[in-house]
């Protein structure tokens, strides 16, 4: 295990949170309200079960194969060829996720901050930061996540402020009209917000104390869930489900109604902090992809070059940027892909690990 990419349990917790909370935080309340009305917050709570299961599965898998990195793990369980193919699929999935996230982020920046600046410039500037962060190694990525987590706390405080003064508790009622179908659809759509736990497959082998992985990752999911819950409840209290579905990003729109002395308009300051929060998610995903590639080619100390290459690839991919309206459609596909690759793949590997008596020799 390269010392360059060591992380501790606390950093893992923040990385998991950081890998989940991003643009979704701002759009999730509207998406869930569309499906489940005033029960959107319940969808958030129940949707958290998915990443929790994912964490448990990956932790079980990792603990059965201590010392193996993700590439070795795939090859040990699936064989050399199939393992190689599946790790490539996994890396491509991470890269496509990153493209999706950075496109969504750049669209938001384009709308709220820089409407005339070319889209690709916005993406390029963000990619420079992301590649720089990832090129420093896992230790530094862990530290960045630790630092930027407190930006998330500040953002949540900012979102709570308007809800304190402009809330209508009847917007959350009644609770007893839960519809199973609506709930399931809501949970399905919440999955895209919780996507990010799959990076644990890559990072498990980098944690210096493997016995801390489970509790750290579960705490990370808990923090993300709390963040989403706070945002969803605040948005429901202020807008109500019916009016909220009109907004693309109610998490930002809620800030427009706050009147704060001196600061005047809260949403721009929020967005200034939130840039770091979203980029943190993308850093985590791209770094995980880069680390997997580095492990594939046994070049973990060349992470900087790999980050540059993968950054260039993702930047190129961002040119096929969907429109804001297409994101809703892509969301469904993204959730399905996360279920297949992020959830089912680790489960499959765990099942193989349980039922196989031998594993392939990967020279670990």
């Amino acid at each position, binding site marked *: 295990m390269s010392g360059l990419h060591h992380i501790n349990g606390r950093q893992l917790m923040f990385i998991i949170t950081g890998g989940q909370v991003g643009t979704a935080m701002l759009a999730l309340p509207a998406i869930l309200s569309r499906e489940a*009305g*005033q029960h959107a917050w319940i969808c958030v709570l129940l949707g958290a079960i998915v990443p929790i299961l994912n964490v448990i599965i990956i932790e079980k898998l990792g603990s059965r194969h201590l010392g193996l990195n993700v590439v070795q793990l795939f090859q040990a369980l699936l064989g050399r060829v199939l393992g190689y193919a599946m790790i490539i699929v996994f890396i491509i999935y991470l890269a496509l996720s990153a493209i999706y996230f950075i496109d969504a982020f750049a669209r938001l920046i384009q*709308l*709220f*901050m*820089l*409407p*005339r*600046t*070319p889209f690709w*410039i916005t993406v*390029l*500037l963000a990619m*420079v930061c992301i*590649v*720089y962060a990832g*090129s420093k190694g896992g230790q530094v990525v862990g530290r960045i996540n630790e630092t930027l987590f407190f930006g998330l706390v500040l953002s949540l405080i900012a979102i709570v402020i308007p809800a304190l003064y*402009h809330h*209508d508790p*009847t917007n959350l*009622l*009644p609770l007893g*009209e839960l519809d199973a179908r609506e709930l399931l659809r809501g949970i399905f759509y919440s999955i895209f917000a919780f996507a990010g736990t799959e990076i644990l497959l890559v990072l498990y082998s980098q944690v210096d104390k493997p016995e801390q992985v489970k509790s750290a990752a579960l705490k990370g999911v808990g923090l993300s869930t709390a963040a989403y819950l706070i945002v969803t409840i605040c948005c429901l209290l*202020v*807008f*109500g489900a*019916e*009016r909220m579905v*009109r907004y693309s990003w109610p998490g*930002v*729109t809620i800030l*427009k*109604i706050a*009147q704060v002395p001196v600061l005047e*308009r809260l*949403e721009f300051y929020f967005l200034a902090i939130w840039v770091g929060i979203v980029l943190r998610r993308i850093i985590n995903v791209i770094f995980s992809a880069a680390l997997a590639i580095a492990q594939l080619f046994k070049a973990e100390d060349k992470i*900087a*070059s790999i980050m*540059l290459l993968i950054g260039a690839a993702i930047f190129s991919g961002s040119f096929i940027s969907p429109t804001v309206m297409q994101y809703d459609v892509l969301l469904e596909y993204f959730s399905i892909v996360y279920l297949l690759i992020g959830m089912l793949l680790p489960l499959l590997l765990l099942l193989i690990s349980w039922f196989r008596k031998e594993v392939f020799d990967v020279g670990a």
Partner: protein
Amino acid sequence: MHKKLWVVLLMFACFNLAGCWDSKDVESLAFPIAAAYDVHQDDPGGMNQLNQGPLEQPEVDVTVIFPNLKATARDPVTVETIPAPTVGYAREKRSYTSSELYVTGFNKVILTGEDLARQGLNKPFESLYRFPEVSTNMLLAVVEGRGEDILKEPNENTDNMATYLYALLREPKAHSIPATTLHEFDMSQAAGRNPVVPVIKAGGVNQVVLTGIAIFKKDRLVTKLNLYQTRYLAFLRGISTQVYIPFVLEDENAQGAALFDNERKVTVERQGDRFTFKVQVILKGVITEHPSEQPVDTARVKMIEDYIAGQVESNCRDMIKTMQNEWKVDCIDINKYALSKWRRELKDRVDDEQFIQNAEIQVETKVKIYSSGEVR
């Protein structure tokens, strides 16, 4: 090797800094601080020449007031009216008359003419929700007449009319007319709710006077209430106010007054399809005038409380009757309580006229005077 690539990448990023596509220095901006939307009328300014295309029949007059930044400007503000097919489209027309870049994020007040309000305000307001720089904290007001007449009236006692309007329409100081923001107007169009907006007209020392409140059914103006009626609407709707309520000392035939804060509680029950709303109006305050030789003791306070409670309850009941029979719109925001219990069933019919007409609405008033000021 990768350090050289880093340098190249950073240099490339730095070259992009030459763009500054969104840079707009503050002195080159025209930022309207108040706007008025009216139904299109004759075009004395000749601005209709800006509308030339087949889809450019002007339907709305957009008047804005923005400060002049140049020290040599003759007037501190400029007021300009542009006719356009829609409010959003008027921004394009404005760029033909002004050398400065038009920025909408400073608008504090929007006035709408009464005619336009009766036609419906969602259409003119629609573009405001789409621009991120537009603040949803803008204060709204309906004008008896045309909004542009108010904006074009010079106000010599303050910086400009926009500043004065903003100060006037903000949170009520000692009256019952609420401040309605664009956000509240939008949220109040949810099922079971309807907005109310202050009404102003030209007059008075500062050229503008608050005359009451306008009741809307979703985005269309239904009726206007005078200042007296507004008070009881505020009580029933639960708008936090601080109002003076007069009372009569019947034994001395003298009139006094008390200052109250108000709140309300609403409960709803149903029997079959019959919904019964119980609205409890709670008034807490102090006696501000008691023209009597007799001191204010417990019995006296009880007498005053009962008198006020009776008056308020009676007026509230009258208002409810009018609301149900004439206006046929829930302007006191009680239907949302029914939705909070039976949302799935009621959400499609709660806004029907029959729903509010057939509801039974009971009013109870509780008055609590806790002080008589410095003297008894």
